[in-house]
């Protein structure tokens, strides 16, 4: 139970920091990526509702991933902030190259894909490789935010 609750707490804290970093980067003009918006518009085209739902969904994802981190650290028998950061680098790479770039457009009903043609009218442009369609700094920011998340989760988990 210690692992579970420490991972849960780490997930909440890590996601809070990651979400804040991503939002701040967008407000400061470094990226057009808005994860809450992207996630929320999967269920509604109302922009405000989408953002609220998106933040909720992002927190749930953050906690879910933290529990996976906990399970992984319990399996290898060690945990630390730098190990968390290292796993987060892998997660960021997966997110930017596969999860958001390939999988999200496939399941997102309002997002375009490279196959979208004239007989469809999506509302959201696809993120592209390394999410570069949303600004050239997007991947770097995503990577840094994930490293911060992973370090916090890794630091918080008690085996």
């Amino acid at each position, binding site marked *: 139970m210690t692992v579970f609750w420490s991972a849960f707490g780490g997930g909440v804290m890590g996601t809070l920091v990651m979400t804040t970093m991503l939002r701040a980067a*967008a407000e400061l*003009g*470094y*990226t*057009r990526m*808005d994860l809450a918006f992207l996630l929320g518009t999967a269920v509604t085209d*109302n*922009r*405000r509702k989408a*953002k609220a739902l998106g933040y909720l969904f992002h927190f749930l994802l953050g906690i879910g991933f933290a529990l996976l981190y906990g399970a992984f650290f319990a399996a290898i028998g060690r945990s630390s902030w730098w190990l968390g950061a290292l796993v987060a680098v892998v997660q960021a790479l997966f997110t930017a190259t596969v999860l958001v770039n390939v999988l999200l457009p496939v399941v997102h009903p309002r997002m*375009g*894909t*490279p*196959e*979208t*043609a*004239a*007989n*469809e*009218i*999506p*509302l*959201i*442009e*696809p993120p*592209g490789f390394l999410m*570069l*369609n*949303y*600004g*050239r700094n997007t991947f770097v920011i995503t990577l840094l935010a994930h490293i911060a998340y992973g370090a916090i989760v890794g630091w918080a988990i008690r085996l």
Partner: protein
Amino acid sequence: MRIDRYAPIEDYALIGDGRTAALVARDGSVDWLCLPNFDSPAVFAALLDVERGGAFALQPAIPFETEQRYLPETNVLETVFITSTGRARIVDALTLPNGGLEPMRELARSIEGVSGVVPMRWRFAPRFDYGRAAPRWERRGVTIVATCDNEAVALSIWGAGEATPVEDGWQATFDVRAGDRGLLAMSTAYAEPLIASPRHDVESRLARTIEFWRRWAGDRPYDGPWQTAVRRSALALKLLIFAASGASVAAPSTSLPESIGGSRNWDYRFCWIRDSNFLIDALLELGCYDEAKSLFWWFMHATALTEPDLHVLYRLDGSPGVAERDLSLAGYRGSRPVRVGNSAFHQLQLDIYGALFETAWLYSKGHHSLDRDTGVVLARIAGRVCDIWRCPDSGIWEVRNGPFHFTHSKAMCWAALDRAIHLAGRGELPSADVPRWRREADAIVEFVETRCWSESLKSYTRVAGSGDVDASLLMLPTIRFRNDDRVAATVDAVNRSLREGDFVYRYRAEDGVPGSEGCFLNCSFWLVSALARTGRVGEATELMERLVGRANHVGLYAEEVDPSTGAFLGNFPQALVHLALIEAAVAVARRS
């Protein structure tokens, strides 16, 4: 026919699938196609270099004449070849996906014998990266495959001769008798394996593509005058919208010259903010509410990185990389340089702020409410307009010898603040800064009325204090700029000073770019609209009738026309011209 092996620009027709587009010449040669998207490098670029660009020709092997048209209410092209021995018909389309396992992009060319026997030939010579990379060839059954790095194109051949290799590709000759049916299908792949579709799948996609376009065109409820021209323009504009993001290209080509042999050759495969203003207006007018919403969402998303500052143009997918560079291609009839990218990206063009707010206003009026976050962003941008409207800029025509205080730019800044005030009045924008917006809007009017009016010309001037006029001033009635008498007098002055026959020059001043240019066709349609809006409906109607007759054989327009010969110049087909045509038709209809 061809001059120096180049087809006249007006001899082309456009086919597309909402992701990319191909230019097909009247003689059956596909001379321009970028893959996988509009702004990707070309695999067929004979348009810009007949030797090295690559093309896909399909035509009779004996002398012929052609009749080319779109299948009614579609973007699918039919070319009938008439020879001394018979007639053959080809149907060209970039097919739309059906939802199954399909090629990433597909060009289908179906061949049918109509009468007699027609000896036909085709020559398939793709190049990669604008002709800079030669393909590696393979033969796999009925399919020829050309690959280069992570790209591949494959040509499947059914009933269209036995392919033999030649120096730059593959070719075949074959006879088509009445009732014969052949099919050539070019499928493409980018960073994924090729999909080899059987013949009936390609034919099924082609049939469904025709069906889709007919349904789409049938859903456009326009019933005003010049229906054929307006509906063709709508179909052409739909082809220029990049479906994945909702953005639209200004034109699907690059570097078609503004004068033959000249250097005014630009890449238009980007989305200009001002074009999207006109496009949303036209889409709403034609009942394309979903497309308008998609474009507006793209618009707000694309500008999120730079707001409250706006860029002049954006890439279709929002990614970076619009730097201008020259390609080592020969250029259309020797017109060099051939450019990709567009350095107008770096310019300050104040009119785009007016375009943005006009777009938001039209979108809001079109039964779409703006959400609060969008309203907050727009309010910030309105504040930015207050900060910068006093700056000189490069203007709507993107002059390269500026900046100047363009009258049109100032008027568009006024339009931005005026629409912001109206939007705030509807509760769509925060209203805290309305007093400032009103103050600055009044200051702009004061500037225009005192520094941009010439008593001797009886007209607003091109730039503050100048002694000439500019066709962009024809937009003043459209944006409902204040002083009706002066606006009407300005329309007169532009009509007198810049008109040549049915056409209108942009201006007669230097613009920092060497060489000459033709008349911009959008200016002619703007004149129609301005005449109608200032009460001269009869004159507007007559001019419109003549301009509609200036379209090419399939109803499309290039950016410019040579007023002495009527030949098309510049990139083709140009969205702004078709948008201006729709706007002009609606303006005349509303005042008739």
